[in-house]
């Protein structure tokens, strides 16, 4: 399994009321391709409910879910010095997994997959959302799919055509990362989250967003905010 830890030190000034020395985010890229043996080993650290949910998917979806969830458990286990199978994960109403209160230790985690690339963010003393997406070829259809604000549509159209595919995909990963950090997902209208089109970093709807380096053909965004925004 490809497992590349990337340490992104967060500029502490953006986060309030947290001791800056405690604050960090670890991002890992995960290769979700796996042979049957790797898949079996990964599946062994999942809870019965996780295994059941994974099996509901087609074989590709099954493999991605298993590999991503196992990697999430491994990352959290590493932070908590626990066996991956022993990590207690809960799921919020909107389907967002989170480390259970007892073992949370100021930890937050989020993950995303696109094709065979998974990304995992584990934040200490901050709230995280992460999203990865394959860069889709530019299509004018994108403008009217209903998730870009008017200002973003205008900004995208003012870019040279060859830059729009990356910019539009990044708009999406920035929105999705913020929605996932917020914990609402698409229950909040993505239109209302206005991204700085063309910029890999910035502040979006109050969250700090940054590009995560990923292989060519994908774009990934990490969203960070203060831990206090975590719902009770």
């Amino acid at each position, binding site marked *: 399994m490809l497992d590349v830890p990337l340490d992104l030190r967060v500029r502490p000034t953006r986060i309030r009321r947290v001791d800056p020395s405690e604050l960090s985010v670890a991002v890992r890229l995960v290769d979700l391709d796996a042979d049957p043996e790797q898949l079996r080993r990964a599946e062994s650290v999942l809870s019965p409910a996780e295994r059941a949910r994974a099996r509901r998917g087609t074989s590709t979806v099954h493999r991605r879910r298993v590999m991503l969830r196992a990697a999430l458990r491994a990352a959290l286990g590493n932070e908590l010095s626990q066996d991956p199978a022993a990590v207690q994960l809960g799921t919020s109403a909107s389907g967002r997994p989170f480390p259970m209160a007892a073992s949370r230790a100021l930890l937050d985690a989020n993950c995303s997959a696109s094709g065979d690339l998974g990304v995992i963010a584990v934040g200490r003393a901050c709230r995280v959302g992460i999203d990865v997406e394959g860069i889709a070829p530019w*299509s*004018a259809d994108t403008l009217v799919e*209903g998730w870009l604000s008017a200002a973003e549509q205008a900004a995208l*159209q003012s870019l*040279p055509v060859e830059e729009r595919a990356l910019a539009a995909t990044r708009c999406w990963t920035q929105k999705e990362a913020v929605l996932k950090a917020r914990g609402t997902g698409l229950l909040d209208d993505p239109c209302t989250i206005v991204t700085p089109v063309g910029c890999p970093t910035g502040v979006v709807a109050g969250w700090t967003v940054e590009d995560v380096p990923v292989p060519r053909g994908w774009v990934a965004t990490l969203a960070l905010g203060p831990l206090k925004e975590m719902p009770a």
Partner: protein
Amino acid sequence: MTLTAPASDPGITRRPAQLAEFRARLEELAGRSLADVNALHAWSVEHVADFWRELLRWSELPWSGSDEVAMVGDGVETAQFFPDVRLNYAETLLQPLPGVDDDGPALTSVHAGRPAERWTRAELRAEVRRTAAALAGVGLRTGDRIALIGPNSGRTVIVALAATALGAPLATATPDMGATALLGRFEQVEPAVMVVDRAGMADETLPALLAGLPTLRRLVVLDDQPLPAASVPVDRFDEVPVPDADVDAWERYPFDAPLFVMFSSGTTGPPKAMVHGIGGTLLEHIKEHRLHNDMRPDDVYFHHTTTAWMVWNRCLSTLASGAHVVFYDGPVSGPESLWELVADHGVTVFGTSPAYLQLCDDAGYRPADSVDLSRLRAVLSQGAVLEDWQYDWVADAVGPVSLWSSSGGTDILGAFVLSHPELPVPRGRIQMRSLGMDVAAVDDEGNELIGQVGELVCRNPFPSRPVGFLRDPDGRRFHEAYFVQNPGMWTHGDRIDFEADGSSRLHGRSDGVLNIDGLRIGPSEIYAVLRRIPEIADSMAIEQRDPHRPGALRMVLLVVLRAGVEMDDHLPRTIRRLLRQQASAAHVPSVIAAVPELPITHNGKKSERAARDAINGDPVGNLAALRNPGCLTAIAAAVRPQRGVGAEPSRAAVPSVGATGDALLRDVTAVWCGVLGLSTADPDDDFFDVGGTSRLAMSLMRRVALELGVDVPVQDFLQAPTPRGLADAVAQRASAGTDAVPLLRPGHGRPVFFLADAWGQVNSYAAIVQRLRTERPVHGVQAPLVDRDERRLSIPEIARHAVALIREVQPRGPYSLTGYSFGGLVAYEAATVLTAAGEEVSYLGLIDTVPPEAAMTPGEVRAAWWAHRLYLLLREGPGRTLLGWLRPHRGADDVSSEDRFFAESSRVARSYRPGPFDGAVTYYLAEDRSPIVGNTLTAWRRVAPHLIVTEVPGSHSDDWGTRPGVLATQFADVLAARMSATLR
């Protein structure tokens, strides 16, 4: 007709226009008066050879040879000008001129954040000569093509002129263009030498260019960064040795020798690489600058452009008139940027775009109040159509200057219609036809139209016709580009109308090219794909005003089926799939309709124009020219008519739903499989289990809207993300009411109405609606913002329609209305209308609805303008947004229809005068606002004495989009709670 001031006024005493001097010479030749503009133009096209010869002589360009033969042949496509004349472009621009101070400023290069550089005429000549010698030293020879990638700075100008001095054809571009775009241009150029400035260039661009341009022999870098690794020798510009040999006289080249390689923008496929000749370019530009714009040695000319737009090349030529030319390579960080530059440098002729003027108007910026424009005599506008009100704005906010709009193109490196220096400017119109060019509007038969919109053509030869295209050895592409549609004429691809006085107005692109969401789409690419579908006998792709997106256009595909073939569910899907795969997603039409036949003119040409008028419900302009006018009725019926004013609001149509849900489920499943790339699906499959993602969910909703005509919010879909759940959601939405009054949230009791925003949309209210704590149902109200002729409706007109829609849902009061900004104005007006009709309005909420200017006293208006301007400067990031707006090299498609639509909404809002309203009004005031807004609330209090103001978090940010507005999700809790308190 409103007139702006004549050109002669603004503070500078002008001698008679140069046009008068030249006209006197033509009158001698003609032996009669040519004082009338139409008489002058008519003579210039009837005696086209004499006209250009006289221009060559009068302008005293440095040339050698003989001008006896002015024109060989008389075909528009083939005629050749001045076969025996030789000249040098750089020499013509830089030669010492009588009456022009050689030590006076000739070129000023303005930068952001560092001092401007300035060259006198003598210095510039010496610098160009030195640079030419340096370029010759690195191996640039006459006839070698050179690619120059640089910002709009003096240094770029010097390199460009040096290349032309050597007779090396030049192609230019800006460093911020991507590698793909640059290669698309320069691959065709096959340059021998490339000069680049890497400031602002992406790291990967230069290696990609070096790899993709095998003809390169030498690379020269203008910047100070480390020299790049390259397979060809690389020099730093400043270190290129200058050979001692003094090249004193520049060699003169044949009239048609190549000067510039220019590129058409916007069409699909590789851009056309057009070659323009030395003599044609010079004569056209001298004519425009000196005769039409009266450019003189005492003028200072600044045109906001980039090196990738033809305006830049035309700016260079201004040097030939002795004027001082200003170039600027910095960003536009606010509406004041360019006006301050104009004032600082004493600019007399300022060139800009309608977008920038509109931006200043929208920002409430008044240049005349802020900077000294006493030297400015004319504003040139290019790149898009200048709207009527922009003439008023310039007269009011800039002052008594001539506002000169022109239109032409890269294809002719000049203008077909432009200014007249002596005549007043008719509001909203371009003054005259270009001298020497027989420009007209024609119908499908090639007959001239006066007072009607037609195809823009030029019916005689002109020197600035391209010499040819690159990679077009037999001239076939060149021929097909301009000369097929109307034999014997240059057909430009624009629609235009002329009045008898010779004035004109542009009306967008003509039939050939579709412009959907700012992308130009050549229908021939669509027809090429459709020819592979055996069921289709013939087809036509046309634009229609999109009833769902005011101000936008959508593509309608009309198909004629072969005998015996019926339109079924599969054929449209096959068409869409093949177009997507073999052309692009942009080529997929929004609507596909089978029709019995297509409109054909008497001479056998298909008329897109007639079909387009028919489906838009417009009067068909060329009915008499059609062989089969009867077919239009069937075409109009086959395409669902647009919802316009007075028309019945159309019920959301579900074509095959009927009483049985099975047909709908089948349709939904087909779309589902298409989006997910599956061949089959079970009605209860979970979207995410079969490979769906959030992103794909958005695409699925879009496909459902396109193919089934129903907008399903993704939130509804996520409740039950299965084909069955989706079919249920579609059925529910389809029966939820008219789509002009969508149910945003179900409930019991009297509804709450949210009036649509400046885009005619209600989705910006989603976060608020979701968080309202009330049992009452919530409706959006989407009254039309335009009428059938796309004329913008006023706030009272919109409100009248809104009241009618509201009454369909709730016939009697008391009513609860609210709206944000523009929507707030409509809500206010609707409330006054309802009250006047004897109804009670129990709740009227204005969400950050800044009072319109018409309602303010002049002092309030002024204060608000200044406050807004300061505010813009203080805010983070507007520069980027503005720059995106303004990037002028994108040509006529520059301002997207959405931008224009929003700008027009602002205009509608500003001209609204609210009447008195005696009921209670709750005003939700954005905390994050310019400081003056609090004071202007007195304007509201004057008409609505019972105004209660409550502060809510967020900014008033509907236009600039860099800071979250009051409707943003993170602030929605507070606003929703405040509203709920009143609504409960």
